[in-house]
């Protein structure tokens, strides 16, 4: 919500926040499945993916706080911003829905983040970010494989699972375009060599999705109006409720150590 000029100066910080918020919100969403998954093995897999993302978020917030240089630590950034200042994409805040929707959301995200982290590791002039990226790339490779297999299993399973899987795709595909958009802040970060243009991994993402959908018998819907706004803090209505839960303890007991 701050002036554009100020955030432009803080482009590196803001770009790191985009990555961190994506990881935090999606990790939080996955953690909501705990104890409620279709099988015990999936409870573990979902928790595993959630832990990967929360770990990435933690490292990114810590680094972002250093870059910002105003003394804000990982928890200040994760828990104490206003909703309009979270800059995650809309895809990651979508509610879990059923298992098909969760797998679709994760597939879409992992199919992007896997090559994007690889590109960051290869080209970022920020050694810390490159280090985070190298680890995250491996983690996202697992997410991609795990969720791609599930999307295929569900798309080419029973009539009901196919219906649910296609419904999930019909609902979520409209949120994928935002992954490749470069906000003005991100464009500046690209120019500064912090990370590459997300558009450069779009072709690979499309190939991955097409390959999985083909095996799954799924059709990507035509999206006439891609949904976006997350990078400007313009979220949907689910985000406020998510943050009310997530931030509650820090708000109710300000400034304490846990």
């Amino acid at each position: 919500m701050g002036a554009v000029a100020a955030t432009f100066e803080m482009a590196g910080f803001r770009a790191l926040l985009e990555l961190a918020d994506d990881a935090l919100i999606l990790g939080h969403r996955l953690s909501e499945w705990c104890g409620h998954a279709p099988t015990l093995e999936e409870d573990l897999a979902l928790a595993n993916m959630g832990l990967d993302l929360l770990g990435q978020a933690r490292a990114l917030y810590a680094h972002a706080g250093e870059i910002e240089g105003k003394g804000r630590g990982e928890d200040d950034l994760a828990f104490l911003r206003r909703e309009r200042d979270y800059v995650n994409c809309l895809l990651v805040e979508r509610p879990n829905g059923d298992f098909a929707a969760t797998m679709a959301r994760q597939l879409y995200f992992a199919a992007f983040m896997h090559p994007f982290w690889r590109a960051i590791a290869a080209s970022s002039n920020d050694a810390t970010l490159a280090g985070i990226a190298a680890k995250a790339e491996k983690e996202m490779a697992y997410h991609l494989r795990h969720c791609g297999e599930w999307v295929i299993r569900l798309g080419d399973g029973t009539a009901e699972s196919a219906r649910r899987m296609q419904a999930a795709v019909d609902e979520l595909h409209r949120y994928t375009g935002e992954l490749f958009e470069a906000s003005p802040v991100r464009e500046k970060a690209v120019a500064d060599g912090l990370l590459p243009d997300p558009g450069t991994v779009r072709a690979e993402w499309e190939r991955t999705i097409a390959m999985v959908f083909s095996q799954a018998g799924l059709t990507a819907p035509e999206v006439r109006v891609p949904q976006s706004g997350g990078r400007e803090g313009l979220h949907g209505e689910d985000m406020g409720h998510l943050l009310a839960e997530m931030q509650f303890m820090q708000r109710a007991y300000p400034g304490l150590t846990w």
Partner: protein
Amino acid sequence: EEFLSLFQARVDREEKIEPNDPMPEGYRRTLVRQIGQHAHSEIVGMLPEGNWITRAPTLRRKIALLAKVQDEGGHGLYLYSAAETLGVSREQMTEELLSGKAKYSSIFNYPTLTWADIGAIGWLVDGAAIMNQIPLCRCSYGPYARAMIRVCKEESFHQRQGYEIMMALARGSDEQKEMAQDALNRWWWPSLMMFGPHDGESAHGEQSMAWKIKRFSNDELRQKFITATVPQAEFIGLTVPDPDLKFNAETGLYEHGEIDWVEFKAVVSGNGRMNRDRIRDRKQAHDDGAWVREAALAHAAKRAASRTVPQEAAE
């Protein structure tokens, strides 16, 4: 009869009984019940702690709690696998849990009301579980003993983390300290109940001891727990909610107040605060996931069928 003595001799020699070894039906049945209950406890135990993941107060605590709950799920997997070596299927065990036929540790029928409850569960509940589980690492049944060794490693870590949460609270603000004391007040007695009825009233005790499924009596383990835990409470300035707690220098043991066996019976018989909610949540997860499991089976069948077709045609 001779078979029973031969079997007992093996057990007495501390030999491990393995899945395909001949064993008395009573031995098999006891283990199926106990290992099943243990597995169900790990699974149901994910719920009270899972209740606080979305509200964990810091990233570090959020990650640690999610990892703990994931570990518990993993423990459940090891234990279901161990039970399956005795001829019972996961589906059967799941059905028995959801129908109320099989039990799980009654401690998980208590609600987690504050963040301090998460500390108390790690410290006291995992602490009590460890007291039970360390002897089980030497259980006569091989798969169960080996599962316990893996479980114990992770559970010690969880217990220390829980205590660390309590320590941070006890050293925090007045409100945090009150929160920790309140959680201790509410979880202390239920944790003591985890060791089961007094020795004289315990139904399965003697035979289980003979078969080296059980190594120590309920009261012995309960005493070990109290002995280990009271100093930990004192160290962080919290008070165990038992005005009759008294260290007996002669015996080296703690005397403690009477456990409320009426409450224990109520909770064990399905009337605790969260019993119905726990089973309802597990049942919902199971029912909501049916279409997923069916799809996985259907897909696997399709793949198996396509593999029997000549390779050319399949491509």
